[in-house]
């Protein structure tokens, strides 16, 4: 048999091939250390840090101490907190290659249900945590509906959550009879409006959600599978991941995030209304994308999202400090989004680069 003969030649061949394959693997896609760094996660967050520093400098130059005062810093953070919590949730669905347009109106719905007289009555009879549980449950159910329609009904996430965006707002209007419900439970409002170690509770909640989100995405099987599904759904399925179930749980997760944001909103405004969270989904998606999470899925960064949120809220603050028009502000926001996505395409993953390399004119 020919087997004998070949075994002799096998070691050197294997060894040399390996060396070459390795060479081509590294030298072929990345040109040098600097570029490598820019392409890595460090490079992407570096850009965000630079953007944030530039904004702070602008604030410092235009408004001086007024801007850098610790009160103002807390204003920026408090402003960031509610959108921040939403954005952390949205980071997960976008990383998995999905999208959730309904977070803003689900936020409104949870605030309305959480502030219902019946719920508040039950809360004052026992504990204000009842309100928390109810709001989170409402968020979770909304997410469950989204997830089931998307995963099992095979409806595109964009359409499914667009439907929920409209429907949840409508439901909130029906339940609240288009009135603003006041949050009368003082234990609840006191907690939400309190400071802890000199920092508002709302900011603490954002920090905790961000930390939990970071851990979940980077250190758990759940996070790992989320990235995998966004990167290659078919491969994930073949690897034995229960893809549909996972997708449902992702939408439940973002629904719960909307519930938390709803509670924060009730605390900050001491009210629940169907108009809470209006257009927040756009701010959240913008923050996530600016942060460097790929809109096509397969790569997500919680740190990036936190930076994205901070950049937008600092921007708003700089404009407010200088009494500038909100229209100009919107214009600047738009420019930042485009810039960020352009940068992302330069630095981002092989996915984007490969697509550009296509040697065909389509």
């Amino acid at each position, binding site marked *: *048999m*020919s*087997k004998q003969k*070949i075994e002799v*030649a*096998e070691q*050197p*061949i*294997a*060894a*040399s*091939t*390996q*060396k*070459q*394959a*390795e*060479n*081509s*693997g*590294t*030298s*072929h*896609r*990345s*040109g040098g250390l600097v570029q490598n760094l820019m392409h890595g996660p460090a490079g992407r967050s570096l850009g965000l840090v630079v953007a944030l520093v530039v904004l702070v400098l602008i604030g410092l130059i235009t408004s001086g101490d007024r801007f850098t005062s610790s009160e103002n810093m807390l204003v920026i953070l408090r402003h960031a907190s509610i959108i921040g919590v939403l954005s952390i949730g949205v980071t997960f669905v976008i990383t998995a290659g999905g999208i959730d347009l309904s977070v803003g109106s689900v936020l409104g719905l949870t605030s309305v249900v959480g502030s219902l007289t019946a719920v508040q009555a039950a809360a004052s009879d026992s504990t204000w945590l009842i309100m928390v549980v109810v709001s989170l449950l409402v968020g979770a159910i909304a997410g469950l509906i989204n997830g089931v329609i998307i995963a099992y009904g095979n409806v595109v996430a964009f359409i499914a959550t667009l439907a929920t965006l409209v429907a949840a707002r409508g439901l909130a209007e029906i339940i609240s009879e288009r009135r603003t419900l006041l949050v009368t439970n003082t234990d609840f409002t006191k907690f939400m409006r309190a400071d802890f170690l000199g920092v508002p509770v709302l900011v603490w909640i954002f920090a905790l959600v961000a930390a939990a989100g970071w851990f979940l995405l980077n*250190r*758990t*099987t*759940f996070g*790992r*599978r989320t*990235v*995998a599904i*966004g*990167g*290659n759904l*078919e*491969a*994930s*399925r*073949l*690897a*034995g*991941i*229960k893809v549909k179930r996972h997708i449902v749980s992702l939408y439940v997760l973002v629904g719960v995030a909307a519930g938390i944001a709803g509670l924060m909103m009730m605390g900050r405004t001491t009210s629940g209304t169907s108009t809470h969270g209006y257009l927040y989904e756009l701010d959240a998606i913008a923050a996530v994308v600016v942060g460097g999470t790929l809109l096509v899925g*397969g*790569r997500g960064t919680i740190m990036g999202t936190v930076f994205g949120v901070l950049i937008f809220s600092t921007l708003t603050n700089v404009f407010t400090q200088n009494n500038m028009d909100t229209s100009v502000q919107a214009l600047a926001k738009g420019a930042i989004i485009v810039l960020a996505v352009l940068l992302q395409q330069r630095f981002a*993953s*092989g*996915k984007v680069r*490969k697509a550009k*390399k*296509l*040697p*065909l*004119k*389509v």
Partner: protein
Amino acid sequence: MLKDENPRPLLDVRGLTKRFGAVQALKGVDLSVLPGEVHCVMGQNGAGKSTLIKTLSGVHQPDSGEIFWDGEKVDLSTPTAALSLGIATMYQELDVVDGLSITENIFLGHERATGGVLHVKKANAIARTLLKRLGHGSLSPSREVGTLSAANKQIVSMARALSRDTKLIIMDEPSAILDAGEVQNLFRVVRELTAQGIAVVYISHRLEEIREIGDRISVIKDGQSTANNMDVADTPKAELIRRMTGRDVSNVFPERTPISVTAPVVLEVTDLELAGHFDKLSFSVRAGEILGFAGLVGSQRSEIIETIYGARKASAGQVTVNGKRLTAGSVTSAVTAGIGLSPEERKSQGLILDEPIYKNVTLSTFERFSRTGLLDEAAERRAASEQIEALELRPADPQRPARTLSGGNQQKILLARWLVHGTKVLLLDEPTRGVDVGARAEIYTLIRRLADAGTAIIIISSEIEEVLGLSDNVLVIDNGQVLAQKTATEIDEHGVLDLVMKGSAA
């Protein structure tokens, strides 16, 4: 070794059928795999090999038929069901997630974790051991898979199969993307596995490989078993081919036509350089000449032709077609001058999977089928049909979406595209990857016929035999350097490998 014991089969498949819409992909397939054997499954493109293995890995559900595992009837309703029995599969289309690291890919779906919290260090350590066992210990487990070559991605895929408690590994055309050296490495691993009693189902179109690694062979033709459990050593090649194709195919290369001394130089490459890959590369191809690039994967052969095509921007040097200089880094300039490229990674670079066959065939020429901006789809379909005929593309229906074709037939679409195009210079990167024996001979003939019609052709193939058999002249390339330029008849497979070995030792 196995024959005298007559052991119970590990996997026993009886009368499997599967229909996709109008296509009856499997019409009754039997397969019986013994522990510790390498069982080869052979068949032409579209015969149903991948469909068979996908029903065994829980991806597709058979319409009828029975699957026995270790003597017990089983229902493989999900990939998880198959994996937990100990059936691991390396799919024909690479099934890795580019954005994740090597370790993350290996443990995808069965992560090393406690209560959902990952053990990153432990997983990396196991991954490192697995890579070493596969002869690729120098790959870092934390490297992102998207940055790996196709061959190395396959190593990851194999490491994943080994990371589970596996009794049977199914490999669907693993060698299609490997060069000679890597195939030997693969075989070393396969032998190691079978020595431990693990069974391997091995699919390949390369008969020499089957001879070398296989124990028994089963053949599928048009979704039906035509032979089962034939002994590799006792089955002559001609018989195998007959069982697969139902006719006699001579796998010989077409006769070379002597190139006339007056044939003009069509493609001239002078001092071409791509920083970090190759430099000072000069050669020329005359009308009617087939120039072969021989070498191993990673020798930068693909980079060279991609640079000629303008998909990569040359850092120095020039390319001329019929004396006219091309703009570096401009595909448009290359295409206008009459250069065509059939790329190596067809799935990502070449095919629009959801479009019908004919649109894929005419993708780079569809302007030709338009009058005043309106497309003449009927003419497009006619042109595509001609090529479908010539290449024996199956199914021969120009309307079928490219996605539903078998792997080998997808390759043929890309080849058809450039045949329709009528180029002056044709760059072919692995033109027969995954193509069956019968169609291979057709493709060789077609390539030779194009050359005879005056096309200058460059061909890259990992099968050295193919490069030598088809080309007029050969460049042996390693690490971006031309080690030798020879007439194809002057050198044999060993000569090429010797050169490459010496080159990489220096």
